Every structure is written in C-alpha cells, then in structure tokens.
C-alpha cells in the first residue's frame, strides 16, 4: 500500500507492507524500516524502529498526523494525494486572493461586481498587529467578497474571488 507524505516541506513516497513480526515494513526513498508500536500507560506510544525504542506522543487530525518526541520536538506529517498537492489545488491562482496568514478584515474597498485595475487596493487585513493591503493582481471584476469587516479568517482562506473583466 502506498502513501505520499509531506514532512518539513519534503515529499516522501512510502510503501507499507505487513512484516512477519507483527509489525510493518515501510520502504521509503529506497530504504526499508521495520516498525511496530505499543501503547504506554501515560498515553504515549513506544515505537520500535529498526531495533531502537522511542517513547513519543502521537495525535492525528483528518489530513495530518502529529508527533512529539522530547529530543526532536513536534513534527507534522501531512498525507498528500499522490496525484496532486497538499489540498491546495483550488481554482486558478489568479482567480482568488488567498489569505497569506490568518487574521481579521480591517477594511473592504470594493463591492461585488466592481471592475478593478491591476494594483488597485481591494482589502486591508490585520494579522499579528500589522496591517497588510491586498491589491488586485490584474484587471478584473470582483465576483465575490467572502469576508466582511471584522470577520476573522484562517491561513489560505479565499478572501476574494475575481472574474475576467
């Protein structure tokens, strides 16, 4: 069974099979790892990897697993579609203005249906107490304003949708 993971900006393709010892064999980047795990009473997991033991914390959300070890800190592992990217394949990039960081909308300078020129200010957002103005990347018509003044949004949220002028 194959999986593609994104860890620390690097993509890793792995093939997982069952091993005869009740654990798993994982082939990654041409190398084989034998691994199994057991639960510890304090909620941690003890990993046995190629004969080494590591007591770690593990948690997972829908698309990511998270690992904490005392020596290495927290690591996020995103499962990505072998076909596409890490879930960011939305509509064409030039058709949407995506939040560069989570924040709050301070001002919206356009309304839906407005025609805008390249470089025209569209929205002011605030994050980390700093304001950033979002400008039109090209001449376009504002198809949708997804967040109003005072609304908060997450990283990569679509703030505005543009259509051809």
């Amino acid at each position, binding site marked *: *069974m194959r999986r593609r993971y994104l860890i620390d900006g690097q993509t*890793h393709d792995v093939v997982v*099979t069952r091993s005869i010892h009740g654990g*798993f064999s994982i082939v990654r980047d041409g190398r084989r790892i034998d691994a199994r795990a057991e639960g510890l009473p304090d909620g941690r997991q003890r*990993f046995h990897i190629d004969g080494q033991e590591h007591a770690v*914390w593990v948690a997972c959300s829908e698309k990511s697993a*998270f690992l904490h070890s005392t020596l290495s800190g927290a690591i996020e592992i995103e499962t990505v579609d072998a076909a596409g990217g890490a879930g960011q394949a939305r509509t064409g990039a030039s058709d949407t203005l995506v939040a*560069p*960081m989570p924040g709050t909308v301070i001002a919206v300078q356009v309304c839906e249906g407005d025609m805008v020129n390249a470089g025209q200010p569209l929205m002011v957002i605030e994050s980390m107490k700093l304001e950033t103005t979002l400008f039109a990347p090209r001449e376009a018509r504002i198809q949708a304003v997804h967040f109003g003044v005072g609304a908060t949004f997450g990283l990569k949220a679509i703030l505005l949708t543009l259509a051809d002028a």
Partner: protein
Amino acid sequence: MPVFQKVLIANRGEIALRIHRSLKAMGLSTVVAHHAVDAGSPAVLEADQAVELHGATPVAAYLDIAQIVEACRSTGAQAVHPGYGFLSENADFARALMQAGIVFIGPRADTIELMGDKVRARNFVAERGFPVAPGAIEDEDPATFLERARQVGSPLLIKPSAGGGGKGMRIVRDLAQLEAEVATARREGERYFGDGRLFVERYVERPRHIEVQVLGDESGQVVHLWERECSVQRRFQKIIEETPSPALTGKQRLDICEAAAGIARACGYRGAGTVEFIYGAGGEFYFLEMNTRLQVEHPVTEMVTGIDLVREQVRVARGEPLAFAQSDIAQQGHAIECRLYAEDAAHDFRPAIGKILRWQAPAGPGVRVDSGVREGQAVTAAFDPMIAKIICHGATRDEAIARSVHALQDTVLLGLTTNARYLTRVLLHPEFMEGRADTGMLTRCADELRAPPQSEADTDMAIVAAVLSDRELLRSVRSVPSMHAAMGAWRN
C-alpha cells in the same frame, strides 16, 4: 475601605485563569465574562460563575464597557479585575465602574490617562528629573518640529504620541529622509490611533528593554519589586523575559529600580504597574513608558520574590496598606519566562491556527506553567496567539536556562505549529547564554536561529507515526497475507 466578595474577571485565556486562582486563594468568588467562542475554556469552566458577552467580533465583546458593567450588576460582582490588554488601560472603563459603584482593581483613571498619553508621560517624568532620551515633541511648537527633530541628531526614532506596541514607529538614520518618514509616521498614527501627533527621540543603538515592577497603595507608599529584562522580541513583542537582568551591575540595578519607584511615587501610583526603560550599551537608561496594569511577564517577578502580584493588587484595591517594606523584597535566584505562541517561526512568525489535539504542560522543580487552553479547543485568529507561558526558576541564570530548555522539550502541543523549538534555540544561542541579547537579536541572528534540517531518524519516526495512525492503511495492509505483501505493493 471598599469591601468586596465577588470579583468579575474581564479577560480571557491564561490570565483569566491565573487571576481566578489567586482570587479563590483569598476566599473571593469569581465571575468570568466571556464571548461564546471561549465558553469551553478552562477559565470559564473553573470560575464560580460565567456570564456571556456579545459582540460583532469576539474582541469587540471583551471591549464592551456597558455590557461588562451590566454583567457586574446582574451577577452582583462588586469589583473588576481587567487583566492585561483589552480594557486594562482604559480610563473610561475605570470611570464607568466607579460611577456604578464597582471597584476597579487598578490605578486611578487619571493615572491611566497620564501614562496612556506618551507625550504627557514623557514630560511628566522629565520635569521631575528622571531620565528621558533627548527628543522633540511636535505639540510644543508644530511649526518648528522638523527643525527641532533634526537637532536631536541621527539615528532617531519617530513615534506616534498616542502609540504603543511598536505601531507607526520609524527609525531614521539619514536625516535627508526625515521629512518623508515623518509624513509616513503621521499617516500610520492617524490610521492606527486616530491621532497624527508625533514626537522623536534619540535612537539608542543595540537597545535593551529593562522594566521595573512597582506597587503602590492608597496611602502613597510605593515599593519596587526589582527589574525584568525583556530584550528578546520579535515584531516589537516580547517572547522571553527574565529577572534579574544580566545587563546590570548592582549599582545600575539600584539606580533603575529607584528611578521607577520615584516615577510611581510622583504620580501617586496605586496598585501594580511597570515602568519601562531603554537601556543602552554605555549603561545609560531612559524612560520609555509606564504600563498601568499587570504585565504578561509578571510571573518571573513572582518566582524570585515569592509575592503574588494579583493578591497584592486586590489588597491595595481593598484599601489595605502594603504588607511589606522595600527592604523586605529580595530577588532569590533567577527566573525566565518563555511565551509559547501558536505561530510558525520559519515563516516570519505568522500565526498558526488549528485544534489542540494533545496538550501536556511540562512540570518539575522550579517550573510554573500559566495556560488557558485545553485539549480539543480551537485556536483561531480572533485573539493573540499566545497559548501558554512557561516560567522556570533556578538558583542561577544557567540553571534557569537549563530548566527552561528541558521544560520546552517536555511541552507537548500537537495539532498546530508552535514556537517551542524556536524558543529553545534562542535560549541556547551564545548571545542569550552570555547575557548579551538586545532587542535586535532575533533579526540579527535569524539565520543561526533557523531550524536545522530534519535528521533521517526523525523523518523515519515521523513516517512511522503517520503510518501507524492511518487506520485505513493498516486495515488494508493487514488484510494482505504477509507472504504476498511485497507483491501486493508492486501491483499497486
């Protein structure tokens, strides 16, 4: 003498919980006023009573004076603790409470106003003979402001009169740029604070941020609780604070602490406050501003003095005299606070959001953790992304650093990106270890503070974690008999 039994906490997160615990230890009842997004937070769950505030945004709810006064009426709270941020330095709030017969646990409204106006505060301090950086104030004679600013000489710092938090501040090294920079600073001041008035100050090279905790009572008694150094800053925000400051000699420590107490005494300061100074490489120090509230970093002072500052704030608000004299307050050992933020240090400290899947605070000798989150809680962009403060005490600075590093390594927060590892790299950087950090350290040492590339062993461990948490993957792998497994993989 104002007597109160029930106190409303007009704040959220770690500070609301921390205040609640001191109030309970004094035998008082607590009410936490909160927006719906915080309904499941530990402060709200632990409080004796909770009352919901409404607002167009969560922040707006915490800033709504009328609703908070009404919440006091409806719950019977006779006093309010404002924490830090939100309404803690709002003179109108202090007045509104007073008019409603509710005790504001903080200084008098006129003190808040005086110190809230940076220019008035600077003049007040200078007129009483305390050190301020050479500067020029626009209001004194707007027509000659540029000329007077030029006379201060470069490098200089332009600041909005109504400012704070580094907003609208600009450093000018080339006086030819002065006029343009003044115009920009004025626009920013108008946008952020609705006030375009400016002043300039001599910019101190390699500045260090040193502040002094003060405490005053109704009768005019003022003591200081020694200094804190908060030079490790990103985007003008402190991330590591400590006491004592490694920068000061014994004589300088006394001078700066006595100057702070003198400033507090001069304004008849009541309650807990902090006088901030800029300290230069030559040992000179200048008044920066006074914060008329509890600071985020107050726990380091508590760790070395053994004094609970919230308890003292409450005692002063009840009209009681200070329980100790200056000579009773000693610094024992060394304490360091690290602020754990939901943010990505690798990407310009942008805030991270997400659900807290696992939260395990560190513990051990000399370790204190002030946090206000629980597992399952979502961290959103609605508020400041600070999750917890990890405060470590040691007999020496080296021991406090070692304990802090260990505590950060033991801090388990899974589900979103935090700055835990970044903080350990800062603590272990030679500039910090040797006590040489100034406010420019994080920018100057950005390359050295970057995370090292992940080791192969860590990547292996991460892949194992992902595989072993993938139920669908495990099920389908287990369903293939092991002798066909390798073949199955090829077929895929």
